[in-house]
């Protein structure tokens, strides 16, 4: 019996002429350092070439959605921090937006600005760490990641001063934010943002035209435009394929229509484009931050009419979505008029972006799988929920 018979999906392969072909099934993960958490890929290899790859999920599953059905609407807010634990503020916003759509809550001006400032800072630190991790995955051990984490730490210090926590911020509330800016925060934030382009320049000088990086990433993990749309890919991975779809421009949620910024797009849809796109998006985020911090108005930071206790939206349903750093993060809520949601659904961008992982990896070698996965940017807290 041929070794191939054990792998029906590899039936199109023919054994080599000498009859010596053997496929090797390798379990990458769940403890592999490049999988960014507990994620497993069942990889079938022909020599060094990937002929089949099946992602296996669930190691971090805690049925977040079921827990939320037993919680009040506000009670789920801290749990959303734990979805994508790199970007708790955008998770908060997506959930708050869904509840505000469901209950018809208006958000005051100052709160809208605070949300945009915190969300764009989140995007900065997420993208900075992602490019750092990607370099780490490529074998640039230590230095690029530590440079990125140095910048990330400055932003996390801002989050800590504002919300009391570096990562589990739990900052947004329905109709606004939890607290106003502490004294001196804005000045400190302006300094961090003003210093950020220097980091990007430094990073680009070091890495963008680096010959090894280009050799490792260009033409690797190519994703076609059509497949990306059909497979529901969102965020930087989609835009690296050249599809102009950013919810900040399409939905104009919050007050994103007041700021001038551009949407960077890629050409080739390979790992290099995804990596470059994040660097470019950080520059656009800095533009938004500069405008938002310049225009930040005075006023209430939360809607005083929204009930905090015994909050019961009218029966109905709503889907709210935002452009999180990893893609479209959506919350779908069904209310039956009680204090708990009847159904609470998270549309996790990380999970759905993994749909095309196998398509991108087939025919590449194992070392490429690591950087293709790294370029998608997943966080298992969100994938497994």
């Amino acid at each position, binding site marked *: 019996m041929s070794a191939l018979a054990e792998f029906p999906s590899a039936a199109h392969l023919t054994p080599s002429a000498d009859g010596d072909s053997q496929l090797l099934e390798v379990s990458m993960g769940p403890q592999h350092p490049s999988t960014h958490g507990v994620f497993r890929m069942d990889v079938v290899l022909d020599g060094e070439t990937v002929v089949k790859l099946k992602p296996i999920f669930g190691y971090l599953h805690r049925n977040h959605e079921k827990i939320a059905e037993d919680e009040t609407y506000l009670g789920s807010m801290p749990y959303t921090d734990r979805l994508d634990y790199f970007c708790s503020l955008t998770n908060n916003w997506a959930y708050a937006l869904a509840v505000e759509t*469901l*209950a018809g809550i208006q958000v005051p001006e100052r709160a809208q600005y605070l949300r945009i400032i915190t969300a764009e800072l989140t995007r900065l630190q997420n993208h900075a760490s992602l490019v750092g991790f990607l370099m780490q995955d490529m074998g640039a051990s230590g230095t690029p990641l530590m440079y990125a984490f140095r910048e990330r730490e400055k932003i996390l210090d801002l989050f800590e001063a504002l919300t009391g926590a570096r990562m589990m911020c739990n900052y947004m509330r329905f109709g606004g934010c939890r607290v106003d800016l502490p004294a001196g925060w804005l000045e400190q934030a302006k300094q961090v943002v003003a210093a950020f382009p220097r980091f990007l320049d430094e990073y680009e000088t070091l890495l963008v035209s680096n010959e090894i990086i280009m050799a490792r990433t260009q033409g690797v993990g190519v994703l076609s435009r059509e497949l990306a749309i059909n497979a*529901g890919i969102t965020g930087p991975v989609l835009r690296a394929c050249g599809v102009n*779809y950013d919810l900040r421009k399409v939905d104009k949620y919050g007050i994103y229509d007041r700021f001038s910024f551009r949407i960077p797009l890629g050409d080739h849809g390979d790992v290099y484009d995804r990596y470059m796109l994040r660097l470019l998006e950080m520059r656009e985020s800095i533009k938004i931050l500069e405008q938002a911090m310049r225009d930040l108005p005075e006023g209430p930071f939360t809607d005083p009419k929204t009930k905090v206790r015994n909050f019961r939206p009218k029966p109905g349903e709503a889907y709210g979505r935002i452009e999180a750093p990893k893609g479209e993060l959506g919350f779908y809520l069904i209310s039956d008029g009680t204090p708990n949601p009847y159904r609470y659904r998270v*549309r996790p961008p990380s999970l759905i972006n*993994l749909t095309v992982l196998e398509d991108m990896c087939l025919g590449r070698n194992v070392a490429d799988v690591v950087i293709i996965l790294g370029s998608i940017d997943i966080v298992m807290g969100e994938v497994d929920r």
Partner: protein
Amino acid sequence: MNLESLKPEIEANVPGCRLEIISNPSPSAQHSLLIDSEHALAIAIFLRDAPHLRFDYCSNVTGIDWPAPTPAPSKAKETGDAIEEDVENAEALATGHLEVVYHLYSMELKHGPVILRMRTQDRSTRVHLPSLISVWRSVDFQEREVFDLFGVIFDGHPDLRRLLMWDEFTDFPMRRDYVEPDDYEYEPTAHDKVLLKTMQHQGGTA
């Protein structure tokens, strides 16, 4: 997207389909379209390919469990024996339904959402719905998740396995009537003895 104008258009292009607009009374006003499972695939292909609709992006797939409304349980029932509960479970499974909701957007024309709903006939055996994976690849993992957590069987899905729970798991944890297995293990520890000793030392009784 105005469903009042979309509904006759779908009916004209997919002959024989039965559509119903489910209105949403909340301020979000996101109304949805209940479609029948026999024509779901044709409706999906029409929505994706019609040049002025082009819903090329299926964003979100949600499973919902709707058991038939039951009268509030009385206190006597809580002490009832297991056989009685089994009978009740069978009744609960024969009534009610499971629902799957698809949120569609258009990346090309940048509009949406159109919300499609499909319902199963009951909650026990007639839980088959057509998979829309041939129209949108994005439903791949999401339909697997609905199968995993709710038990909807998607006909035509090439790889319908559990996504988050392990393969040997048999129940559907997101259903409203799911009961966690009682696998609580009690183990007396030295800590309890320490507590007892403390209490005796302080002159109390155990």
